């Protein structure tokens, strides 16, 4: 039975700069009990689509049809729509930290949902809330129902969100990036919970995500969106194994999950602006297989035997078309072996002490004795979930934070207790690239002066000489030197991360510490940045510390990996050895959670206990 049928949906969002064409001619059907996946990068229109179904897009100009249980939602009066929301169509938002109201208990929030749609007493509603919390894996639900959201961990909060969404047994559940804000081991638990719930309750689930691999491995049908267009739609397995559209193929190829080492086949360029009306194929400017006609006319819909449909001028599936394969950059030459240790961290500990508000003295051990060595010209990956202390370690190595005990030496010199002058000198050798390309650049300063800052501070170059050096750097990291005078807001996320890298490179450092450099970027952009990072290492002989929660990324770039948990190193080893023969149970858990096929089977680690209680 078809629960939801979207027909030729167009969504325009009025904005100050004109209409944003967020969706163009999108159609799909969702059957009962089905898990329907929508994948796409940021700005592809996938979240707008889900909000349009919920009727939560005031002011949007929507045409087409959204048929839900036979009724067109677009024609429903607001009151009717309100009656459906939460009752027949429910939603789970991306971030369980902000998705629950901080001032009401979870019980109050769940009973509110129940009592909005059903005439039951407060006591009955509370009993239902307790039952549903138990079903989604909250221990002691009768006690915890009276707790506030901040007393739950991230994974637990997402369970509460799911409980609230399914308590009225909706026919359709829209999960908008339900696991993106969660740690990888918790992600697996949430996915398997959703899977279990749809089978038990017969709820159809639309799952919106940027993680195509995850999606295709669990979804019955997957839809790939790009710039508001439905590029490809088909059975999940088919989309993953034999993508029909060059964009899907490019996405899959550019995510570092594959066995491929070395440079990633990235998709060049950036997604188009949605303000401009598209007349041809939206992907044509970035497509390796683009033909003349692709730039001139809207592509036709191709139907393939396995049920896949693709919006493309190619007559065959992209995976069968040689031209569609993104060019793989040449393999890097082997890096010269060296036993020279550039960074040595010995038994670094960090304890935050102090008095709490209530006068109790509290000690928080952030790092409990971490040691590591980084050989010259190599990359050491540091993996761990949020709160394991990996970013703190990075700050200590960079000398930005003094450890409680232990020592850090860079090229033989301790970074601790440096005089002002030596500290400035040290900055020439160690640089950092930060996670958030939006937050780590001053929005009121021009790119040229941001990149040129190190020269100014270190008094290395002045005036025209500095300007030339900055232009050189921009060229090295693949930015147009003409954009010297622009502000960070005029650049995309990937370009901003290039700016961050250029700034780090300015003083010819020997060591760069990358703290989650690609986790805020889309897959196709992430591949570009990873390739850049690898190229710079080859060409400049840099040594990297690469910190990430994403095992696939760390595996791709690192020669050696350190696994951290709760402030300690639980395992370290050569990348391939660690991946194929993990010794520590936590490493195995991380690996299993990052493997989509493992997730599909529901996994053996869906024990909610392991995600912990209150953080």
């Amino acid at each position, binding site marked *: 039975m078809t629960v939801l049928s979207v027909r030729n949906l167009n969504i325009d969002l009025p904005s100050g700069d004109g209409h944003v064409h967020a969706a163009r001619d999108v159609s799909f059907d969702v059957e009962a009990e089905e898990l329907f996946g929508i994948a796409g990068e940021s700005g592809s229109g996938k979240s707008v689509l889900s909000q349009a179904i*919920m009727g*939560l897009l005031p002011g949007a100009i929507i045409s087409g049809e959204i048929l839900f249980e036979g009724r067109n939602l677009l024609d429903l009066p607001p009151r009717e729509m*309100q*009656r*459906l*929301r*939460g*009752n027949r169509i*429910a*939603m789970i*938002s*991306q*971030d369980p930290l*902000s*998705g*629950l*109201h*901080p*001032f009401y*208990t979870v019980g109050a929030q769940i009973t*509110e*949902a129940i009592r*909005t*749609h059903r005439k039951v007493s407060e006591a009955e509603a509370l009993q239902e809330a307790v039952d549903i919390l138990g079903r989604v894996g909250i221990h002691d639900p009768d006690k915890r129902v009276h*707790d*506030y959201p*901040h*007393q739950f961990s991230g994974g637990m909060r997402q369970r509460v*969100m799911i409980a*609230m969404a399914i308590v009225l047994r909706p026919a359709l559940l829209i999960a908008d990036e339900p696991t993106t804000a969660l740690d990888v081991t918790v992600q697996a638990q949430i996915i398997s919970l959703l899977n279990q719930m749809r089978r038990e309750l017969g709820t159809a689930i639309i799952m919106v995500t940027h993680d195509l691999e995850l999606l295709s491995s669990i979804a019955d049908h997957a839809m790939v969106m790009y710039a508001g267009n439905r590029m490809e739609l088909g059975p999940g397995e088919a989309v993953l194994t034999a993508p029909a559209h060059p964009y899907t193929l490019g996405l899959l190829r550019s995510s570092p999950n594959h066995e491929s080492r070395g440079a990633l086949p990235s998709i060049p360029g950036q997604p188009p602006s949605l303000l401009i009306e598209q007349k041809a194929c939206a992907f044509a400017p970035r497509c390796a297989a683009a033909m003349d006609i692709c730039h001139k006319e809207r592509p036709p819909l191709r139907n393939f035997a396995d049920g896949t449909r693709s919006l493309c001028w190619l007559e065959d599936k992209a995976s069968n078309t040689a031209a569609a394969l993104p060019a793989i950059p040449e393999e890097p030459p082997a890096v010269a072996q060296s036993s020279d240790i550039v960074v040595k961290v010995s038994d670094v500990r960090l304890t935050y002490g102090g008095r709490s*508000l*209530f*006068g109790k003295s509290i000690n928080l051990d952030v790092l409990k004795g971490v040691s590591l060595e980084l050989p010259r010209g190599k990359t050491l990956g540091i993996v761990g979930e949020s709160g394991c202390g990996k970013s703190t370690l990075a700050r200590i190595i960079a000398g930005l934070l003094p450890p409680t005990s232990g020592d850090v030496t860079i090229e033989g010199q301790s970074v601790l207790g440096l005089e002002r002058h030596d500290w400035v000198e040290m900055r020439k050798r160690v640089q950092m690239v930060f996670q958030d390309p939006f937050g780590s650049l001053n929005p009121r300063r021009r790119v040229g002066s941001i990149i040129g800052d190190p020269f100014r501070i270190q008094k290395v170059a002045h005036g025209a000489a500095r300007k030339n050096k900055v232009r050189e750097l921009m060229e090295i990291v693949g930015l147009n030197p003409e954009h010297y005078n622009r502000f960070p807001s005029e650049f995309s996320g990937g370009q901003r991360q290039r700016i961050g890298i250029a700034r780090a490179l300015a003083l010819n450092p020997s060591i760069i510490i990358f703290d989650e450099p690609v986790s805020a970027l889309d897959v196709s952009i992430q591949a570009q940045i990873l390739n850049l990072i690898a190229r710079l290492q080859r060409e400049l002989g840099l040594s990297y510390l690469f910190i990430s929660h994403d095992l696939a990324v760390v595996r791709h770039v690192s020669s050696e990996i350190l696994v951290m948990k709760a402030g300690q190193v639980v395992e370290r080893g050569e990348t391939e050895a660690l991946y194929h023969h993990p010794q520590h149970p936590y490493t195995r858990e991380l690996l299993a959670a990052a493997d989509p096929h493992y997730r599909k089977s529901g996994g053996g680690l869906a024990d909610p206990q392991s995600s912990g209680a209150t953080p």
Partner: protein
Amino acid sequence: MIRFIASRIGFAALVLVMLSGFVFTLFFVAPGDPARIVAGERATEAQVAQVRENLGLDRPIIEQYFSFVGRSLSGDLGYSYRNQQPVLELIKNRMPATISLCVGAVVLWLLMGIPIGIMSARRPGSLVDRLGQGFVLIGVSFPSFVLGMAALYFLYFVPRQAGFTLFPPGGFRPFLPNPGLWAWHLMLPWFTLALTSAAIYARLTRGQLLEVLGEDYIRTARAKGLSERKVVYKHGVRSIFSPLTTQLGADIAALLGGALVTEQVFGLQGIGSLAVQSVQTQDRPVIIGVVMLAGFFIVIANLIVDFLYILLDPRIRT
């Protein structure tokens, strides 16, 4: 939790002790000889010395301070240099007018500002919002003495010339036995004191609520199928109480300054006018008494704000 409350109260007491020491020292080092002022212009040196001794001003400052603190604790704030009335009694006589003015003004500005802010935030850019923004602009642009004068002119003087009394020009009537008369006399002072703050609260409410309405949990509330009314009031407005409380704590502290001007304009015999008179006449016991009283109320107001915080935000509570 109990320790937290106890520590806040202890801190409040410490603030008052420090304030008393500071004020006392300030007047000791200030120029001017109170003994001479009290004795009068034609007094002889011997008379001045006699007065000095009577007032205890010849003793060391530390001794004076401790005897002051000791007496204050038993409710004796000393006697006015001017007319030898007990300071406590002077203040007591002036309290009803000031408290009526301040409490009424706070209630009025909250009742005006918050609803205007909410209406603006619910439909940003609409006519209602633009009217609200206009109110904010007018409110913050007029100093209270101008407002007071304008109110007197348009609401007392003009109707008076037309032959009837819309509002009285000022003066204070006690709450009992006739609350109606009390409120009627205070209406203009209340509006004068409240309008600027009402505008500020409208702006604050609008800004905070707009931010909150963009939060994920508001979308969750909508996704539950709640009515827009419930979404805005139960989920949205609930979240802005904390910042409003913070602002209110700071504003109550600053309220006495505004009350002073308003009392002058409307001829209310309150604490504000008492403070002005005592400063003009260098009446130190009265000044110290008024400052301590103001300090006491500010500390209490902030204590209440702290406790409100705990009540409002479960994240602090648990």
